[in-house]
């Protein structure tokens, strides 16, 4: 019987595998095929119900993910580590900024 923790770990592993693959496979057609392959590998082990076997499979998967980790993973610009993150903190709502060179009212 799979435990709740293992279930979460499996979901985490699947999500991170896909994200990692997105960093490696630049073109979508490659990514789709690879994503399907990853899904297939997960589906193959879907029927496992022995906790020890599940644990082993998870450890294998996590080790493979570590091994395949992209050195320069893609980060969405506004997420931590992204190019826009914490660029200009939002002003106090009471502050009005003149962006059109002070000519908004004209």
């Amino acid at each position, binding site marked *: 019987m799979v435990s709740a923790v293992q279930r979460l770990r499996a979901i985490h592993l699947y999500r991170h595998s896909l994200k990692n693959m*997105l*960093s*490696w*496979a*630049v*073109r*979508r*057609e*490659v990514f789709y095929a690879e994503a399907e392959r990853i899904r297939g590998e997960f589906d193959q082990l879907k029927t496992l119900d022995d906790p020890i076997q599940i644990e082993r499979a998870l450890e294998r998967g996590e080790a493979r993910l570590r091994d*395949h980790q992209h*050195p*320069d993973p*893609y*980060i969405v*610009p506004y997420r931590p*580590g992204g*190019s*826009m*993150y*914490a*660029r*200009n*903190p939002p*002003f106090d709502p009471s502050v009005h*900024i*003149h*962006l059109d*060179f*002070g*000519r908004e009212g004209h």
Partner: protein
Amino acid sequence: MYLLIILLPLLGSFFSGLFGRFVGFRGAVLLTTSGVLLSFFLSCVAFYEVALQGSSCTIELSPWFVSELFDATWGFYFDSLTVVMLIVITSISSLVHIYSIGYMGQDPHLPRFMCYLSIFTFFMLMLVTADNFIQMFFGWEGVGLASYLLINFWFTRLQASKASIKAMLVNRVGDFGLALGIMAIFSVFKTLDFSTVFALSPYLADTQIVFCNLEFHALTCICLLLFVGAVGKSAQLGLHTWLPDAMEGPTPVSALIHAATMVTAGVFMIARCSPLFEYAPKALLVVSFLGAMTCFFAATTGLVQNDLKRVIAYSTASQLGYMVFVCGLSHYSVGVFHLMNHAFFKALLFLSAGSVIHALADEQDMRKMGGVVQLLPFTYAMMCIGSFALVGFPFLTGFYSKDVILEVAYARYTLSGNFAYLLGSICVLFTSYYSFRLLFLTFLAPTATFKSSLKTVHDAPFIMAFPLMLLALGSIFVGYLARDMMIGLGTPFWSNALFVLPKNSVLLESEFIPQTQKFLPLISTGAGAALAYIFNISQVWASYRLKMTNAGKNLYRFLNKRWFFDKVYNDFISENALKFGYTISFKTLDKGSFEILGPSGIAHSFINMGQYISRLQSGLVYHYAVVMLLGIVILITVISLWEFLEILLDNRFYFVYLISFLFYNYYSIKKTHSVDG
């Protein structure tokens, strides 16, 4: 007029920086941009007068500090080299100012940004117009400061702060070398004026200098130290790590500072000091080797970068390598010519990249781009022109300088020449590969962009497009127009600005190298473009499988992580330096010396020691017997060795002991009082 060229950007910066809130966005933009534009027009006049009409001039403004032998003045020197740099700096700076109005228009800190851009321009102009080393150093440090401020423009970003501190610190290492070089020049020449130093260099070519208690050939030592400065500023191998990280700054900053002007200060300095370098052949050897290695390293790293700006940053480092190694091969004019050409096409590339980033909602990763050629046709055209000029496509700007660089390297027939030629030729292939990869991934490959970004995508507005157009014109025509003027055989353009020993000049020989060698760069460029097409457009599965093999993955990691330079620096240098700073210099020396040697330390240690010694009084006779025996043995030893120990034991120690006991007693009394109280 000449002074106005330098002063106008300073005035613009002063008013927009200090009165930014008063003059507002519009005022700040107008003040700074008009200042720099005026400066550009005056530079054109200066170029006509100085370079084309051949009338170099010197302006002695005022004394700076005068002390006995050492005089430093505020003086300006305008010769061909200076005015070429003036044109490059003011033209690129003006266009970047105009571009920034559009690019940074939405930023709430625009006046500050414009102020920094103008102050950078001022310092850069000070650097190139200086007539002595001290003033050049002033400009040199000033551009470093401006670079720090601009990288850290979005100072709320942790990455930006880290990158700016890194840039500052790495540049300090280089500046340390430069400062030592300047001191060495003073110790040998007893002056720091360019004219005097350069006039004396042939006469002092065999002088020796004692540096670090070792005797060196003076000019070699000076040139190597100056070159350390150039290595830091021009991001050569070893001190290059700051340049890619500096891309944290806004894109116009990357275009102006980290591509076109500041990073070329090292090349300018080598060219300026050509009369010194020419008499230091060993230093030239080091310059050419390091330049070639930088060129190769940066090009290989650029192959697998995914950040649009980082690819262009590595391309900049690689091109700087070309400039430096050709200076090391004594062809300063070719180096400066490439510097000028590079400024135009690299500024164009950076600003076009900025335009793409701006259009795609600040997305910088090329993996999330593609297919925007139909949406951004103008930017694509500009990027194409920039990339073609960079790879040396025939008759565009890069073609005229890059080919000459390789031909000169081939025609040298020396170890350094062959080494530089070999690496330079390989780099042509790499340059072509990453430039076309950038074009394919950004514009031509099927799109991987977010739908939300594509919905709002728009081509550059006129205020951003106008500078691109002018830079594109520069990238197409400047090389063709200026080639014969600047690097033509026997051109009088440089007059006294650059000095090359006749035996080192091989421009004529380079015309007669085998035709196959002349075509090699072109073939390499074509091959690079074809490879980029195969790997990124037609055979994506093959390239993916290649990348996912063990060897492919390791190589990818190695190159993507910049040959692990940063890791090695962090693990072996930064971390140890940080530990030293905290544990030894702060905890032990600063804080510890007061605590341990000061009263509280002594008082505490004596109490502890007293308690420890009191344990000797165990009440057992044989313990006392052992102590007595040991005491007698030590006494006899001391008496018998007194003649030897007398030298070691300093009488002054007794004084220290006495003082310590005084404090010990004072502390004990205070403690007793407080307990009683």
